[in-house]
């Protein structure tokens, strides 16, 4: 009757090929611009220099005195990362709640208050952009200047940048999960918050938790970097060892990093399993 025959060939093939080509063409100049030269890696002189540098790392330092210092610094780093993530959640969770489009009641129809909703979401997106757009190391430098050396500056810097990242990615995770449940609840008169906990979270909780644990792992690393600018923890210890050209101490500290990442991985796996 009014049915039109589908074409014999895939009508989207050409545009797909075009986009792939465009991506490659766009990437090439970026690679050139970054000055990336793989030949430098296998240059014999460079290899020798790297070798000498690495041999100073062996054997790793195991003096009980240093291990004690390491333990304190590790705990400080863990505390800094955890407190940073906890504060970041205080920023991210309400922002996610505002930002997630599939929780918008006014989008159904669209109904009353749509433009108000869209503009609030726009402002929230902008706030998150500013929070995460400035690197945590810059925030840390600012806070170290304002509040003095110590972990407080690191925690605040983490809270701000990670709040911005978590808020954005949480909203995207929720958006890319199955949103029909939440929509159906909103259409039956449910509130935003209940549509979130009854309709969206059951679908997305695994992803959210594993991303949060991954971000905690990143926060551990970031807090190390911030230690270099005086925000305490493992980073500060690493900074001292490096400045004294003490390779063995640096090696022990690196082992501790690996251990922490391993632990984060394990926590993530356990939580994912529990939430299955």
């Amino acid at each position, binding site marked *: 009757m*009014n049915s039109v025959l589908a074409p014999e060939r895939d009508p989207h093939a050409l545009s797909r090929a075009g986009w792939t080509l465009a991506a490659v063409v766009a990437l090439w100049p970026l690679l050139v611009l970054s000055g990336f030269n793989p030949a430098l890696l296998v240059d014999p002189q460079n290899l020798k220099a790297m070798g000498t540098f690495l041999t100073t790392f062996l054997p790793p330092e195991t003096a009980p005195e240093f291990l004690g210092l390491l333990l304190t610094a590790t705990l400080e780093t863990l505390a800094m990362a955890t407190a940073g993530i906890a504060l970041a959640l205080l920023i991210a969770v309400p922002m996610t709640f505002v930002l997630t489009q599939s929780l918008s*009641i006014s989008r159904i129809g669209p109904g*009353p208050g749509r433009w108000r909703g869209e503009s609030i979401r726009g402002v929230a997106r902008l706030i998150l952009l500013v929070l995460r757009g400035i690197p945590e190391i810059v925030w840390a430098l600012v806070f170290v200047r304002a509040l003095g050396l110590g972990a407080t500056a690191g925690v605040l810097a983490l809270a701000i940048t990670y709040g911005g990242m978590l808020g954005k990615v949480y909203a995207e995770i929720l958006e890319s999960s199955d949103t029909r449940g939440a929509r159906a609840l909103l259409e039956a*008169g449910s509130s935003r918050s209940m549509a979130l906990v009854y309709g969206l979270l059951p679908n997305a909780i695994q992803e959210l938790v594993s991303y949060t644990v991954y971000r905690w792992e990143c926060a551990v690393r970031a807090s190390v970097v911030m230690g270099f600018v005086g925000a305490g923890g493992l980073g500060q210890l690493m900074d001292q060892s490096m400045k004294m050209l003490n390779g063995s101490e640096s090696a022990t500290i690196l082992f501790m990093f690996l251990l922490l990442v391993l632990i984060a991985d394990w926590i993530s796996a356990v939580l994912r399993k529990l939430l299955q």
Partner: protein
Amino acid sequence: MQERVVALRTAAGRGTGGSSSPAIELVEVGLTHPNGHRAITRISLRLDRGERVAIIGPSGAGKTSLLRLIATSLRPSEGRVSVLATNPWQLAPGALRRLRARVGLIHQSPPIPPRQRAITAVLAGRLGTWPWWRSALSLLYPADIGGARDVLAQLDLADRLFERCDRLSGGQLQRVGVARVLYQAPDIILADEPVSAMDPALADLTIQQLHRDAQARDVTLCASLHAVDLALRWFPRIVGVKAGEVAFDLPAERVNDALLRDLYASETAMPPTQDNRPLATPQISGTVGRPLCS
């Protein structure tokens, strides 16, 4: 053809005869989706309180769009929709939410998170009326185990109360979706092919329970059904929808094979039935055994 349809529509039974304000009224409603697809061309329809109506028609005819318009989940591009004597699109946000809590839509594929337990999925039916703290506490400990068990028991599913929904079969999950709307106890029950994943016996049970609930609370029931025999057997009024328009709107006993043949002309040789058994309802006896399309 056109005149005949008009004549049939004016002859159609109108329930209680339009005494009070109708539960659902569509006036010259058209709907174009954002992608440009014209789902509803022009539909006027009136359902009174307590009426029970089946919508039939080929796939893509606009049955789902029609139900979603009534459920205030889609806004008409033209015309006017009135639900429970109010125009939903002129309401303030709070009033619209309260109206939505009074309309329940059973979806063809139940919009229930796979990891949710059946009891939580059913209790979610009352999120529109419960205060927020009750809804929140219900996640820690189910607020109304008895109520959820009652509605699931009506659908022969009480033993699955604490089962996770991803452990249920398609037909069981669909019944959980029905149970949620029964638990919601709305003033309008809308159902979009609510029994498509069930075997004939369970389909009959489910439709029967929907009727019982609608009758007991004197609320409107409007269901789109794929199986024509099921529609004719259970519903006193049948609305045939084709290409976004009402093809006929008649009491079930006046739906004949010619009308059905016209309705499904573009789709199949025979109107679809449960298990593809030949259509053999008393309403159109005499046609049995004769091919509907020659």
